[in-house]
């Protein structure tokens, strides 16, 4: 399964911050840790902040702190912030044809399994047993 870059960065940042809710890390700190673009990560952190998963801390040693609930927040909660969910995406050309709808049923089956997997893994489960 291929995730958008923003989704992957969102997962990296949330998990890294959730590892220790007391720690404050800037987008530069996080970018260096994962070897990714600071600019891109800054944008992702703003999205996570709007969603209430992290909070910006001002000041010289400013950055972001995890403010979610590790046991309640699942991977799907983060993925859904950056990826279009199956139910909400626009119809693709050809989907109305017999072949198009048969293909759609197979793709929907894959989406449903992926969603069940992402929804069942909490941050707590991820951090307890990194795989």
């Amino acid at each position: 399964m291929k995730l958008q870059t923003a989704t992957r960065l969102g997962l990296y940042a949330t998990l890294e911050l959730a590892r220790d809710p007391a720690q404050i890390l800037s987008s530069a700190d996080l970018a260096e840790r994962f070897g990714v673009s600071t600019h891109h990560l800054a944008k992702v952190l703003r999205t996570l902040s709007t969603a209430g998963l992290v909070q910006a801390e001002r000041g010289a040693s400013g950055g972001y702190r995890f403010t979610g609930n590790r046991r309640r927040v699942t991977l799907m909660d983060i993925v859904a912030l950056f990826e279009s969910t199956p139910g909400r995406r626009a119809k693709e050309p050809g989907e109305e044809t017999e072949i198009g709808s048969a293909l759609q049923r197979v793709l929907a089956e894959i989406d449903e399994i992926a969603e069940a997997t992402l929804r069942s893994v909490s941050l707590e489960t991820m951090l307890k047993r990194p795989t």
Partner: protein
Amino acid sequence: MVAVRPAQATDLPAISALDARLTGTSKPDYWRDRLALGLHFLVAETDKGTFAGFIAGEVRAWEFGQPPAGWVFAIQIDPKLRLKGVGSALFEALVARFKAEGVTRVRTLVDRKDHLILSFFRAQGMVAGPSLQLDMELP
């Protein structure tokens, strides 16, 4: 704070009532038969002796070509007593019995739309198994 012990015939009304409340289907005969079959059937009680939930499973071998593994058939926890470690205590006790029988894997099947139970088993360390369940409505 939770004690786990083997289920007895006197637990059947509580097991059946909890299951009926949570699934919407009453099946006392099924639970009585399960208990009589002698599979691992455990109940959890609070320190005040209140019935908190149950788990049932057994070691099965070579079904669908699979080598011996412990199967969890059912787990139900009283919703009022959830998030207190009752489910984990039951799961751990069942797994200990499976290990005593010499198996090294534990399996279960869950409704993929039931994210609560999926999350519970994930939190115990379980991941997607080697089999994929297939299904078809008969015409």
